[in-house]
Structures are given as C-alpha cells and as structure tokens.
C-alpha cells in the first residue's frame, strides 16, 4: 500500500489510545487500528481531522510512496 502513516507515533505523543483517538475523530477504534496497520486508506476529511487533532501538517502523519507494482 503506497500510503504510509505514523499515526501510532503521533498518538503516543498525545498519550492516547486508539479508542480515545477514535472518539476524538468520530470513528471507531477498529478504524483507527486499520489505518495504523495500513489496511485502510482514510478519506481526506478524516485525514484533515486527524491532523487537526494532532496539531500537525498532514504530511507529518501521512506520506505517499509510489508503488512500482501499481
């Protein structure tokens, strides 16, 4: 998957667990877990919401790496 994230690191900085982050972002804990594991690509709205929660730019949480196989 070409979308790489460091959601877990950002979450650790705020000392919150997946359930708490889910509550803040208005999604389920499972969705946060899926994003962290790279199994789900979030929508732009959710990405912006997350960057607002962490108080950082989107690029500091998510980065796009070209996948040569795709």
């Amino acid at each position: 998957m070409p979308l790489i994230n460091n959601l877990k690191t950002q979450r650790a900085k705020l000392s919150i667990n997946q359930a708490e982050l889910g509550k803040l972002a208005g999604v389920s804990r499972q969705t946060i877990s899926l994003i962290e594991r790279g199994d789900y690509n979030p929508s732009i709205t959710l990405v912006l919401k997350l960057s607002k929660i962490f108080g950082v730019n989107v690029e500091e949480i998510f980065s796009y790496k070209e996948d040569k196989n795709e």
Partner: protein
Amino acid sequence: MNKKTVLKISMLMIIGSIFGAVISFGLIELNEAGAMSYGSIISEFIFDNTILLQAFLFLLIYFPAVYLLMKGKKTLKNIDSVSDQEMDQIEKIGSKYLDLVLPVNGVFMILTFMLFGMAFDNTTNSGLLVVSIFLISTIATSVLEIVTIKFVQKMDERLKGDPISLRFAKDFLESCDEAQKLRIYKSGYKAFQFTKNASLVLLIIAIMFNLTLKTGAIPIVLTGIFLLMHIISYGYFEYKNQK
C-alpha cells in the same frame, strides 16, 4: 480479448454444455422413474412431521446461533482493560462469532417460513398447531436478532438505530464510520453479484425442471420476477445515486 481469455470462456462453455446435458438427461430419467411421486412423498413427510422438523431446525440452527452470540459476548467481555494490540486480537475472534449470528439466524427464519408454507393446511386440525410453532419460531428469531444488535451497539456506542424500528437499516448505516460503510458496500456489491448469478442458475433449473418434470410455470415466473427485481433495483439505485 487475448487467446487465454478466449480459451477460458470456450472451456467454460464446453463444461457448461456437458453439465447441462448430464442434468437434463438425469431429469428425464428421474421423470420416467416417477420423480413427481417422490415430490408428493416429500410434501407428505413435511406435512406429517412439522413439529419434528421444526425441533431439528431449533437444534441444528437456532441453538448454534445462540451459542455463537454467547461465545462472542464472553470473548468481548472486559475488553476495556487491555492494550490496543490485545484488543485487536480479542475483537478479531469475538467479531468472528458475532458476524455469524445474524446470517445463521436468517437461515433459521427462512427455513421456518418454508416449513410453515409447506406444512400449513387450514382444512385440517393441525393448522393451529403449525401456526403456533411458526409464531414461537418467529418470536425466537426476532429476540435473537434484537439482542445481537443491542450487544453490537453496546460494544460500539456510536452505532445508532432501534432494531424494532422500520428505520433501523437507514439509521444504523448513517451512524457507521467511513471504514464500516466501505465494508458494508463491498459486502453488498459482492452479495448482489453472487445472488444475480445464483438466481440465473435457479431460473435455468426451473426451466429444465418444467421441460422434463412438468413442474409448471410458477417456479419460472417467481425466479424470473426475483431476478428482474434484483437487477432493476440495482439499476434504479445506481441511477439515483448519480450526482
């Protein structure tokens, strides 16, 4: 279209033709052997053994569904005190049980309806008994469905919708987050494709049965109407959702 695809389609057509010919031949043989009388024997058996068959349905389908719910509930109990990684593992196992409860319960409900449809006869004294068994089974199905949904909602408090309300499906979907919605849409599309192919096969079977066993037009009409509704409704909602 490349050579490989042409070869694949040709092979499928040949296999399909052989399969169709074998089934047709088998049905003709069955007809000659008096298959319709077997049909009457089956109908009579269902009519005479409604209670026993319904008891089997409870034993083989309903109670396992209740067991799956209890197992799922037990697995997901006290999940709050564990780490995120442990929670992922526990939820994965618990969800496997819970995800099976409603489909299994649905199978029980459909078989109950079928049994009722085949066993009910208002000209005999057993009519009231058949209706009573049917009502008990329907109540049991509804209770299990409501309890399961309420538990899922308790586990994820964002999920809304009253399972007794007619607006439940709409309210529930609206309360799901984007990843949950994507999962529902993906499952819905795959189920649509599968049901379309399966009902097409059923329509062909109904035609073949009518040609060989003279089962009449009703199975063809019903399967055809189902297939039409299936395809037209998809087309309608696809058109409606265009922006």
